[in-house]
């Protein structure tokens, strides 16, 4: 089984059922699979072969889905990138993964031009959008997506070196403690295993309609396309949750049965009068990324009593770990349940000794566990450690959990200072690196502060050099020019000095304390 096998099977079994709805466009399984085949042929003609990296820098769109499946069908590795990425970071990602092709949008041309003009090895830049006007990028040929997607298969079409499930399918970058992100290496087998375990508890059918408002650059949003297509269900893909009432109307119109959310979306949803919408077809809501506050769970249960709520836990390095049986949610609202099928979890204490109950770092064992971080053996060795069997590696999550006597898992804290904002992990270090590069900034420290909508909001404390006229707004602006949207601090405070621990390190905990006026 490959990641793209599910789409291909559904295209054979139910070719005329709708697979993908995005804005005004509706594609059946046959149409979607045929179009993805043409994109695969187009990518091959650009020199993309087995194992090559295709960077997908697109908003949620039909083209994004086609590029992902086109890359997979060509035997390549897709690399989803947040559409709000800025030029320096995009350049870093293109170089780090040694991309063969970048697929982006004409609207992102300023960022793309800036990035790829400094990037050596790239076969081509593919742009979605109207192919009008004279657009050129120094050193790199531009191909329009429309042309790519209408490629006729070459005479020697079939790539004889067909991928197997041990090949990489995706590199998904996560915010890193060093540099600007680490690429999580996932094979077809890893992703198929994760999707299959998730399907075991969600039990999607061809009658399901999944609304995906989460970016495909975020693994939670990404997996919805595989879960939907594996089940022969319909995926309704949207760009954002910015206009919740428009989306509730859409849910009614499309008869949506499944809604994956992060706590931020729950907070936005609960501001609205849900009773005004006919949501009887809604079967389940899933939440992950960060814990759903108990108050939100209770309100959702009150307003949508017929809807099953799945509280889940996972990390990009293995996609998903656990889920709470919806029947348990009223009794155990703070738990993320137990390991999903085909996955084993246990705790280790500080000495690395295994415990099945108590409090310790969570370890995950299963076919869903990644191969490591792309070209980062040291980072990999920190999280993938020897397991039970010779050669086996298990994932040390860096998350401290409590497991009770009944085996239910409760998240406690991180072993590092990673921030969870909008359901995504953000390494303070990555933001601090950007802050340190701002002329006039002497020192910087970044923490997460509780926020009713975002989960944690990012707050930066900076000290400036004596003569610097730098203002807090200047710092925010420069952050916004360098970081993806979800990493831009909500607050910046210029302070005289950062609190220190005895050993001279920045005392982050002291930063989090409210300052008395």
């Amino acid at each position: 089984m490959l990641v793209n096998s599910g789409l291909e099977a559904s295209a054979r079994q139910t070719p005329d059922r709708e697979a993908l709805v995005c804005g005004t466009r509706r594609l059946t399984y046959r149409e979607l699979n045929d179009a993805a085949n043409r994109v695969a042929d187009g990518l091959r003609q650009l020199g993309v072969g087995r194992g090559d990296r295709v960077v997908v820098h697109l908003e949620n769109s039909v083209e994004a889905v086609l590029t992902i499946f086109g890359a997979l069908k060509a035997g390549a590795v897709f690399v989803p990138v947040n559409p709000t990425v800025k030029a320096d970071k995009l350049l870093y990602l293109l170089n780090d993964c040694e991309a063969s092709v970048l697929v982006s949008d004409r609207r992102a041309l300023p960022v793309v031009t800036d990035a790829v003009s400094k990037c050596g090895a790239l076969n081509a830049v593919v742009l979605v959008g109207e192919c009008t006007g004279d657009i050129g990028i120094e050193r790199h040929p531009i191909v329009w997506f429309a042309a790519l997607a209408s490629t006729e298969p070459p005479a020697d079409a079939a790539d004889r070196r067909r991928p197997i499930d041990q090949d990489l399918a995706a590199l998904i970058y996560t915010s890193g403690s060093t540099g600007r992100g680490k690429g999580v290496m996932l094979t077809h087998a890893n992703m198929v295993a994760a999707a299959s375990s998730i399907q075991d508890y969600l039990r999607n059918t061809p009658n399901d309609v999944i609304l995906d408002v989460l970016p495909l650059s975020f693994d939670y949003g990404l997996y919805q396309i595989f879960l939907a297509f594996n089940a022969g269900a319909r995926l309704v893909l949207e760009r954002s949750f910015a206009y919740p009432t428009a989306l509730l109307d859409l849910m009614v119109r499309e008869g949506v049965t499944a809604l994956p959310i992060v706590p931020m979306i729950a907070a936005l949803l609960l501001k609205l009068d849900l009773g005004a919408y006919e949501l009887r077809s809604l079967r389940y809501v899933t939440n992950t990324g960060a814990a759903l506050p108990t108050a939100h769970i209770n309100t959702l249960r009150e307003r949508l009593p017929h809807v099953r709520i799945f509280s889940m836990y996972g990390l990009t390095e293995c996609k998903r770990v656990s889920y709470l049986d919806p029947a348990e949610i009223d009794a155990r609202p703070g738990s993320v349940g137990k390991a999903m099928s085909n996955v084993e979890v246990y705790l280790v204490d500080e000495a690395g000794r295994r415990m099945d109950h108590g409090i310790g770092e969570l370890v995950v064992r299963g076919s869903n566990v990644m191969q490591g971080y792309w070209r980062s053996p040291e980072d990999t060795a920190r999280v993938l450690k020897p397991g039970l069997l010779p050669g086996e590696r298990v994932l040390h999550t860096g998350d401290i959990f409590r497991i009770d006597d009944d085996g239910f898992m409760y998240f406690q804290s991180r072993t590092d200072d990673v921030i969870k904002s909008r359901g995504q992990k953000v390494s303070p270090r990555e933001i601090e690196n950007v802050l340190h590069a701002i002329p006039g900034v002497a020192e910087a420290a970044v923490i997460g502060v509780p926020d009713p909508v975002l989960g944690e909001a990012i707050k930066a404390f900076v000290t400036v050099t004596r003569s610097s006229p730098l203002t807090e707004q200047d710092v925010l602006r420069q952050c916004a020019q360098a970081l993806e949207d979800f990493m831009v601090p909500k607050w910046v405070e210029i302070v005289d000095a950062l609190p220190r621990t005895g050993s001279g390190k920045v005392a982050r905990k002291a930063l989090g304390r409210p300052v008395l006026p």
Partner: protein
Amino acid sequence: MADMIAAEIKEFVVTNFLFGQNGDSITNDQSFLENGIIDSTGVLELVAFLEQRFGIAVADRELLPENLDSVDNVTRFVSRKLEAQGAQIAG
């Protein structure tokens, strides 16, 4: 009147979402969402600003791109709300 409203809205967006970047970087008909200017939480901040600055009430049902997704759309929306309020007071 509409010009003044448009200028204020643009100033708010530039100050709060572009953090004071050159105001020329957006045009009045540009979609905030499609151009990555405002995200999901930004829409709520924009609405809070409109309610406070112009003394209008924005209903859930009005949280739509037609009303809020560009300087032009917001200007039309606010003008319409203000006119309706004016008519009410006058009536």
